[in-house]
């Protein structure tokens, strides 16, 4: 058994809504993710998926319970976490290269080294010819690949993905998902993906957790035993994939009212 990368113990989160009334967003969730696992969390809108990511990233603190990452209680943001959002969130005034350099800049990596590494990473996401382009000059798929390169520059032990493929059109999504798998599969890092796209969860993850509608609780914890390396487009008509998806869908359906 690999060591535990992330552990939530009896985590509850209550926040105040716009009227100041308390809202129970996450209700007593316990969860352990071994190092190197790709975990997907699916559930209806407002089930607290993103809230869990935000607690793991240290953006917010749990009301009750503890969030432990690499053996330490999370109290604030740390530099070994790569966080990706639905929108690429690139800095529009920076070229692709300078965007990828950003996390290294924050850590004080020297200019030459930063640049060398950024170029290497952009080559890895097949954007070698677009290093000096600005985000406005790139397509959405390319922008999300720059965001992947930027996250790789963090060399994260833990990837927190908040629907990073959801804003892409169907074909670009497959390309970028494959790109991500290819780059991630040999890093040994842990991934927690939040999505409302069940197929995506089953295609990419080693394990899928279904959450209930608010307040969010874990409803189903399913291992996805599709072997790696995977290619998303090869799996779409795979029978085992379809069975798993159908089984989880039954559980999820009850939550979508």
């Amino acid at each position: 058994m690999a060591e535990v990368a992330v552990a939530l113990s009896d985590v509850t989160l209550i926040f105040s809504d716009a009227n100041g009334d308390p809202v129970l967003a996450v209700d007593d969730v316990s969860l352990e993710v071994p190092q190197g696992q790709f975990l997907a969390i699916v559930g209806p809108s407002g089930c607290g998926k993103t809230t869990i990511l935000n607690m793991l990233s240290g953006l917010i603190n749990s009301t009750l319970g503890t969030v432990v990452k690499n053996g330490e209680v999370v109290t604030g943001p740390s530099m070994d976490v790569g966080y990706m959002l639905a929108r690429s969130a690139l800095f529009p005034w920076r070229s692709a290269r300078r965007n990828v350099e950003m996390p290294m800049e924050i850590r004080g990596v020297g200019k030459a080294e930063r640049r060398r590494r950024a170029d290497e990473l952009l080559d890895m996401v097949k954007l070698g010819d677009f290093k000096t382009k600005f985000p406005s000059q790139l397509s959405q798929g390319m922008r999300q690949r720059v965001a992947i390169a930027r996250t790789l520059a963090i060399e994260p032990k833990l990837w927190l993905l908040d629907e990073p493929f959801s804003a892409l059109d169907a074909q670009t999504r497959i390309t970028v998902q494959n790109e991500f798998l290819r780059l991630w599969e040999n890093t040994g890092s842990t991934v927690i993906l939040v999505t409302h796209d069940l197929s995506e969860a089953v295609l990419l993850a080693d394990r899928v957790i279904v959450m209930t509608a608010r307040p969010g609780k874990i409803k189903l914890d399913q291992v996805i035993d599709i072997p790696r390396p995977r290619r998303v487009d090869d799996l779409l008509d795979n029978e085992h994939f379809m069975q798993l998806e159908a089984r989880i869908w039954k559980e999820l359906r009850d939550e979508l009212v």
Partner: protein
Amino acid sequence: MNSSENREKTPGQKIIDDYRPPSSRQKAIKSLRIPIQIGKLLVIIFAILVWHFIYKWNVINKAFIASPKQTLDWFGSNWDNGEVWRDLKVTLREALLGWIIGSTGGLLTGLLMARFKLLWDVTSPVFTFLNAAPRTAFAPILILIFGLAETSKVVLAASIVFFIVMVPTRAAAGMVDPDLETVMTTMGGRERDRFFKVILPSVLTSVFGAIRLGSVWALLGATFAELFGAKYGLGLRYIAATNILNMPEAFGVIFIIALLAIGINGAIGLLERRLMRWQATSTKGSVMVV
């Protein structure tokens, strides 16, 4: 953006394929460039002709205006006039100083007010009043306080520019893309990184137009204050010329001021284009704001 997505074919092809060449609209605009230049020239010639005939046919009393020819002659006989150059230098110095002080102050105050909401809540009535007050009308008072020399003009120019920059800065600082802040925070960025790498660039982008507008207003403010009394300056030269109905000189000075404004605006426009290269819709050929 949408068209590029539609063009994407198989995943493999996409990488080369989704680079977007200039749109056909951009090309069409490019091919129009020369006819547009000719059109511009024709409109200028037409405007000068209108001016010429207004003078010639006595549409306006000849005592109160100068003809294009007289204005040109004034330039011809004064281009090496040291006193005109000195006045120009004085006004330009007042305007630039007022612009720099006003925009820096406006930028810093705007950022401060956005950062400390409570401070803004408390001070906003005063700022709202000062912004609403006709600041050009303070010119005579400022001259009484700061004297006839350049300081009073700098103060008026700066006070106008201050609000032109402060108001949008405060607004822009509150509208920084929250995704960028999230990414910066999760990357482990400190407060300093957040300010210099996210907030300041975002705000500068939004308020560059206001800073540019401020430059022209600084020139107007400085000139306007000079009308009420100055030691030197284009405004003083202008009011002195109109007082003795020396209309060629009055018109000449107006032209100098206008050309200065265009020059300053153009120079900042070039800088802006250079710095804002990354924007999809560049500010090329943006509106001349006076």
